[in-house]
């Protein structure tokens, strides 16, 4: 028989968790409600509630999607994402492999440089990076965010290094004895073995890139180069006070990463943890 004590504990646990769920989902649900209201209902129905079912409207979504800029935003975000991911994976895997498996001159210096690179604070570096980007004529091109995402964020090295250190060295040795070149060893044997780590890296990076506001805002002020995030900023400034329209934009911009999270939760949690605990 269950004791009162443990029943009390169970109820208490559920109450706490439900409060947490309300706090987390509340602001999102309220935004969702607003996006489904007409302008009159925004004033008349409590912001905490949906309007009556027959008054729910999709008009706000229609008017956001009518705006070509959001389509451009999704396309630009997609282009930046795909190119950055390809290079991040290729360079990340090969760098981690070389650092993890070989001894060579200047190895300590190179590893030290990568470590230092992670300590440099993100936002303020742009003051000096801005000059380099403009002198390479990358300002106001998709190249600016792409090259910064490829060069600037080094978390993939840690994930790949951890993963490679668990792959047995005897695989390398026997491949080389069998006459494999180092390039074949990496391309045909090691790279495919890293697939699970690659999945983690891709998903974590996708979320970071899709959500990033700062780099596109700073380097791509041109209208045609808006990403979904900078689109939303622009849209918000144009919608002064018309919250129901803005709410629809907010919901649409939230969807991609929430979708990724729902489908790839396991990878995301694993990647976030191993990206954090670097040593």
């Amino acid at each position: 028989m269950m004791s009162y004590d443990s029943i009390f504990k169970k109820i208490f646990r559920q109450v706490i968790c439900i409060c947490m769920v309300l706090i987390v989902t509340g602001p999102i649900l309220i935004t969702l409600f607003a996006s489904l209201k007409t302008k009159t209902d925004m004033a008349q129905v409590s912001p905490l509630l949906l309007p009556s079912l027959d008054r729910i409207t999709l008009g706000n979504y229609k008017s956001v999607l009518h705006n070509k800029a959001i389509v451009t935003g999704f396309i630009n975000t997609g282009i930046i994402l795909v190119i950055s991911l390809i290079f991040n994976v290729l360079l990340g895997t090969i760098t981690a492999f070389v650092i993890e498996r070989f001894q060579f001159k200047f190895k300590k210096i190179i590893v030290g440089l990568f470590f230092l690179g992670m300590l440099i604070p993100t936002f303020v570096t742009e003051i000096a990076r801005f000059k380099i980007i403009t002198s390479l004529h990358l300002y106001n091109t998709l190249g600016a965010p792409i090259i910064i995402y490829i060069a600037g964020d080094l978390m993939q090295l840690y994930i790949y290094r951890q993963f490679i250190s668990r792959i047995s060295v005897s695989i390398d040795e026997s491949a080389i004895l069998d006459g494999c070149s180092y390039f074949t060893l990496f391309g045909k044997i090691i790279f495919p073995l890293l697939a699970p780590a690659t999945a983690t890296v891709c998903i974590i990076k996708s979320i970071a890139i899709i959500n990033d506001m700062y780099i596109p805002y700073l380097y791509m002020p041109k209208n045609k180069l808006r990403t979904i995030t900078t689109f939303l900023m622009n849209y918000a400034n144009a919608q002064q006070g018309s919250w129901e329209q803005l709410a629809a934009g907010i919901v649409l911009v939230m969807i991609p990463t929430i979708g990724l999270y729902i489908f790839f939760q396991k990878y995301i949690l694993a990647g976030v943890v191993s990206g954090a605990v670097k040593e």
Partner: protein
Amino acid sequence: MISLKKQKSFFIAASLCLPVLLLLAFVMIPGLDLFRLSATDWDGLSSKSNFIGFANYAAMFKNADLWQSLKNNMVYFTVHLLMIPVELAFAVLLNQKFRGSHFYKTVVFMPYIINGVAISYAFSYFFSPINGAFDALLKVLGLGNFSRPWLSDAGIVNYVLSFVSLWRFSGYHVVLFMAALQSVPEEIYEAALIDGANSAQVFRYIQIPSIMLMVDFVLFDNIRGALQVFDIPFVMTSGGPGYASSTFTLYTIKTSFTFSRFGLAATMAVAIMFMIVLIYVIQNVIIHKLVLREHK
């Protein structure tokens, strides 16, 4: 064998040249360049700049708005610090298996992956003075009298923004703590329970020590995060009213990209780097002297 050795060196050089080049060009050189820029009056556009020694450093220390911004960073830091025990408690709670625990785990981390700009606008709506949801909520609870202009009252705006920051990042810490708790081998718990330890004792003598390194990481992450708070105030208040909700990074970015004083901004960037390293060292000394000694 010589050819194999050559092949190996070629492979290493070929693999590393591009990553190292990118690292140097886009991370290390800009990082170092900040120091050089901090001694100039560069405006961000002209090809020329004058060497002005430590004048920017003197100007930075006398800048009252910057000090105000740094004080605002302290609010974020304190609020997040006070939240760490709660985050730990949630990690211990969600580490157990019970009805709905998987769902709760999913929900607790969700804010971290949502678009920060989108969520900042969502909270601007939540706290808006006209038909805002928070005011409506207070009314339902019979606390309508407490309504105020949440985002334009200089006395509370930083706490409101810190709350948004908590909302976004607490789940991340919970997940990190959970991972640390799971790294404790099951047998240790079993042995402790057989020896008659209660759950408070398990928490105090097994769980806490084993997650001390993670607490260390979260503390440092908190400092780094608090010093670099940017997008939430940038989107929700752009630092206003006045500089009431400005932060150190926000002020630095404004100094460069809005007021074109890149030299002065570089000085502030150097200051942020310096603070991060300093606090990291202090914290390491404290953690290693106090905590690790206790558990040796």
